[in-house]
């Protein structure tokens, strides 16, 4: 077989065409997702924008739409997310560190690994039932913020663990060897080098997981977050409501105005999500630059 220059240039053109086509295909897929999100946001803003004002943010729910607000839900969500972060990040990252750095490659580690991967796929309502049985009933934590936070933490732990493990795996072995060769113990090596080097990746996983927790409704309904709360929670043992619950409640009412209130609530929810993600990404990028 030989290459005639004419034939080669035809083949080359064909190969380039294929590459271009594939790039176009990928771009189309990407943009269709963005487009759908855009349409959704547009619809929601049209419905909800006229209700968005300080009064809406600063009022408790009411049966009169013009007086109703989301204060208690917003504060409840902020409480919930802070508690979830406090519980799930240390537990999740420690688990990932243990599995990657300390547990070895034994059978037990394999079993744990498969189980965690499975847990990531369990429907959120099942976590809700679990939370109801264990935290609300068995541990008598009642329908409190802490019950909600513990349930949500269970829900997002697998995601945090899997993402953190992947991040820890990307830390080059040579860094660990360098530390060991200086007489560092395993813990010193992990704490001073492995954890900081994997921090940006861990943060990415945490951001994704917490965003999911913010939007989850089913487990909270299950453990009995209230739908009409005219007070603010003052501690983790207080009962509470959260944004998705409030939105769900409004959507299920017959009056048109409440549907628009739900839209306004969605905008607030998205704003909270955006602020949270932006903060986390900011922190991540800052540490990333320091590491480089």
């Amino acid at each position, binding site marked *: 077989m030989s290459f005639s220059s004419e034939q080669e240039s035809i083949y080359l053109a064909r190969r380039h065409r294929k590459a271009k086509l594939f790039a176009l295909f990928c771009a189309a897929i990407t943009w269709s997702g963005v487009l759908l999100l855009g349409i959704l946001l547009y619809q929601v803003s049209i419905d909800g924008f006229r209700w968005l004002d300080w009064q809406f943010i600063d009022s408790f729910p009411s049966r009169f739409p013009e007086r109703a607000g989301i204060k208690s839900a917003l504060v409840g969500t902020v409480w919930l997310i802070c508690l979830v972060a406090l519980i799930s990040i240390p537990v999740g990252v420690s688990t990932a560190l243990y599995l990657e750095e300390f547990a070895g*490659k034994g059978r037990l580690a394999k079993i744990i690994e498969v189980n965690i991967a499975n847990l990531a796929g369990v429907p959120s309502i099942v976590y809700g039932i679990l939370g109801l049985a264990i935290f609300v009933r068995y541990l008598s934590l009642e329908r409190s913020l802490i019950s909600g936070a513990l349930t949500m933490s269970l829900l997002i732990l697998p995601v945090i663990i899997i993402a953190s493990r992947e991040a820890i795996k990307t830390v080059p072995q040579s860094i660990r060897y360098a530390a*060991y060769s200086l007489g560092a113990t395993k813990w010193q090596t992990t704490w001073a080098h492995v954890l900081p*080097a994997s921090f940006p990746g861990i943060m990415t996983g945490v951001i994704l997981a917490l965003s999911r927790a913010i939007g989850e409704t089913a487990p909270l309904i299950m453990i009995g977050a209230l739908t009409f709360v005219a007070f603010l929670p003052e501690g983790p043992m207080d009962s509470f409501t959260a944004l998705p619950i409030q939105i769900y409640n409004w959507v299920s009412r017959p009056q048109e105005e409440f549907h628009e209130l739900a839209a306004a609530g969605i905008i607030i929810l998205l704003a909270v999500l955006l602020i949270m993600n932006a903060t986390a990404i900011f922190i991540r990028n800052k540490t990333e630059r320091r590491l480089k």
Partner: protein
Amino acid sequence: MSQFPDPAAADQVQIMHKKSVLELRNVDIFYGDNRAVKDVSFNIRRNRITAIIGPSGCGKSTLLRSLNRMNDFVEGARVEGELIFANENLYGKDVDPVSVRRRIGMVFQKPNPFPKSIYNNIAWGPLINGYNDSTDELVERSLKQAALWEEVKDRLHDSALNLSGGQQQRLCIARALAMEPEVLLMDEPCSALDPISTAHIEDLMFELKKKYTIVIVTHNMQQAARISDYTAFMEMGDLIEFNVTKRIFTRPAVKRTEEYVTGRFG
């Protein structure tokens, strides 16, 4: 296989014994069932450079890593025989590998600075080992010893990853020296470097042997001939010959060694 083939060299056994820092006695290293190093014995002398040469896969890096228990991290690796360091077997029951590594430092094949500042790269090791004097001084001294001070003194707090490959490797040497190790192990330290950086590091090693004992694994026979005082030639896990470098390269006792150093195989 005789390690000290003629009487002149046999005299050296006595001297070597007294001044040796590390003694390898019938060392076997296994990876699972695979015997990667077979019954190796020789002594490593204080303030000298000992080179280990041999074709790829002959077990030289494996042997080097066993000298400061870095093999512990390789799954299935097992060491038999004795490695005597400071009157103690490195693989004895009561020996803490962490303290072994603190006293026997290592420089790796590819420069592997921590993704931190130049300063912290050097100060970290001593700090975690309880060093409580001024680290500023220590950092300066270590960088000077590694002939890197002049190039980096104005940017000690820049990331080490901005340095060139040769500078990174000298930083890794400085980092190891900051621990004031009794022995410095170097695993093909120049194989990822250009000729100028290589020359830098070789010059540096001449300086270092006044204070330290160096064991270097190298692929490069010219390098072994240039810098080392003693050379061990290995093949397929066996120590074929160990002698004064000059001898290995001019009048080796074993035919196999001669064939290797003259480039007829390997």
